[in-house]
């Protein structure tokens, strides 16, 4: 991407120089400072009030007194189980669909277009509507009740579009030479996909999984009526389990005096998401390009 000339030489090449140009510069800097300030305010507030409540015990103990005391251990376990169900179900469907879209879409013209269009619409469905859907299909029609399984399956439906988009992008980044070389060696298309394309596109796939995990971790509304509120340690996937985000909501809205622990839980959630964000950025910068361009 060539640098915009104005970004560097703007000050020197300017001939027409009115007051509006200076005003615009001031406005842009003002907006950026405002956004940075609000960001610092939110993050600073979370850290200032959350950090004092954070300890090893907070992560390893069960909550007591409706969450006012104790920790979040069963909630972390439930969250991880919900994420696990979500990824185990969505990954194969997502990868399969992405392979179809990137490798076979020329042959399956209308079908690929239909699939892509459906996924675009799915990506715009509000999370509370996923809640309505998951509650009806998984909890009631399929008899799973309020359970980790039901919540995980609902989230799987929700993260599919993002997962497919990222995996497809990863597959498309693989140079066409790889496919031609595979074909020239007389490999079947199946072998080309398994042995060449998927390994080469693995970083894109991983980025998709990480992004999907982030989206699922942040989700609350779709889980209220699928995985439920129970804050005990889950014994099976058919138990109800409270996700971390639901815990924050419950402490903040329904438990007077729960604000302190809500701050701490929010901080834990933010730290988990930041870790995920860092991993994605690192993968995108280091692994993604090296893997494809230098083998």
């Amino acid at each position, binding site marked *: 991407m060539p640098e915009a000339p104005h970004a560097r030489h703007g000050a020197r090449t300017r001939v027409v120089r009115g007051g509006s*140009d200076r005003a615009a510069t001031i406005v842009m800097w003002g907006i950026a400072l405002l956004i940075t300030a609000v960001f610092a305010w939110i993050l600073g507030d979370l850290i200032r009030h959350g950090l004092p409540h954070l300890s090893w015990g907070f992560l390893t103990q069960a909550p007591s007194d409706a969450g006012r005391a104790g920790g979040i251990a069963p909630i972390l376990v439930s969250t991880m189980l919900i994420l696990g169900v979500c990824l185990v179900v969505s990954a194969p469907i997502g990868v399969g669909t992405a392979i179809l879209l990137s490798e076979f879409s020329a042959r399956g013209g209308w079908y690929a277009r239909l699939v892509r269009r*459906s996924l675009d619409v799915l990506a715009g469905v509000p999370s509370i*509507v996923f809640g309505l859907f998951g509650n009806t299909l998984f909890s009631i029609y399929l008899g799973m009740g309020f359970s980790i399984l039901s919540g995980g399956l609902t989230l799987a439906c929700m993260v599919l579009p993002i997962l497919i988009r990222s995996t497809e992008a990863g597959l498309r980044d693989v140079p066409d030479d790889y496919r031609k070389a595979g074909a020239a060696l007389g490999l079947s298309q199946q072998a080309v996909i398994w042995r060449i394309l998927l390994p080469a596109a693995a970083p894109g796939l991983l980025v998709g999984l990480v992004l999907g995990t982030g989206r699922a971790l942040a989700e*609350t509304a779709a889980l209220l009526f699928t995985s439920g509120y129970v804050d005990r340690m889950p014994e099976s996937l058919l138990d109800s389990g409270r996700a971390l985000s639901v815990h924050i909501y419950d402490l903040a809205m329904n438990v007077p005096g729960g604000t302190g622990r809500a701050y701490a839980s929010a901080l834990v959630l933010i730290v988990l998401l930041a870790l995920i964000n860092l991993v994605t950025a690192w993968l995108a910068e280091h692994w993604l390009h090296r893997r494809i361009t230098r083998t």
Partner: protein
Amino acid sequence: MTLLWALRFLAAMAAGIIVLVVGFLIVESIPALRSVGLLRFINDPGWHPAAGALHGEFNLGPMLVGTLAAAGGAVLLATPLGLGSALFSRFYAPATAGRWYRRLVEVLAGIPSVVYGFWGLVVLAPLIGQWQPPGQSLLTGTLILTLMILPTVALLSEASLRSVPASYLRGTAALGLSRWASIHGVVLPAARGGILTSILLATGRALGETMALLMVTGNVVQVPRSMFDPVRMLTSNIALELGYAMDNHRSALFVSGLILMALIAALVAMAEWISDERLHA
């Protein structure tokens, strides 16, 4: 070839989900649409759906007004701020600062809505409450929603600013235009379609937002008379009542879900129409 059929099957599952989502919304809405009728969802005197089809009241109007007011206000505020933010990191920021600033906006985009809601509930609402009680109001909701959709506008607009050909910028530089004149006269018109799409996508996000608004708007079912009145959104109404709703009440909540989906489908269609126009222009 079996592999191809297996892949087609998986893709059919992925594509089938949206059909199931819309299908269940419709099927579950039918009882209320049949026994209450569409008209009463906007004509009844109030919202008391638990009393049954005959004695209950099913007016979703105030909540629709709440949703549209908060989303509309948030889009009005987030559009100039998000666009300004995109212009800053593309044209005004020094290289390193721009990179950090963009990362910051990405982090803002990733903050979960429940955390925005929590912050709004314990920090922003009391602050506004000191000035205009009770603090949990349409204004608080609009402000939180603005914060939440701002990164969407900023990141997507910036992507479309980046896709403006570099030759355009060289042209404006050669003409000796000032930075603002070239942005205003050349860059913004060239990126118009992408910016508009980003605004539409942000609007869709605003209409569907649940948790943050549930936590900061006070959730009183009423048509707001001022920005400081508490209101309830269509989305928060579902989150508040689905847990105990029965029969027609439950079905009425699916009707509100259907209304939401219709609004968002219209936006997606508009966004696609715009990007088609852009491709064929």
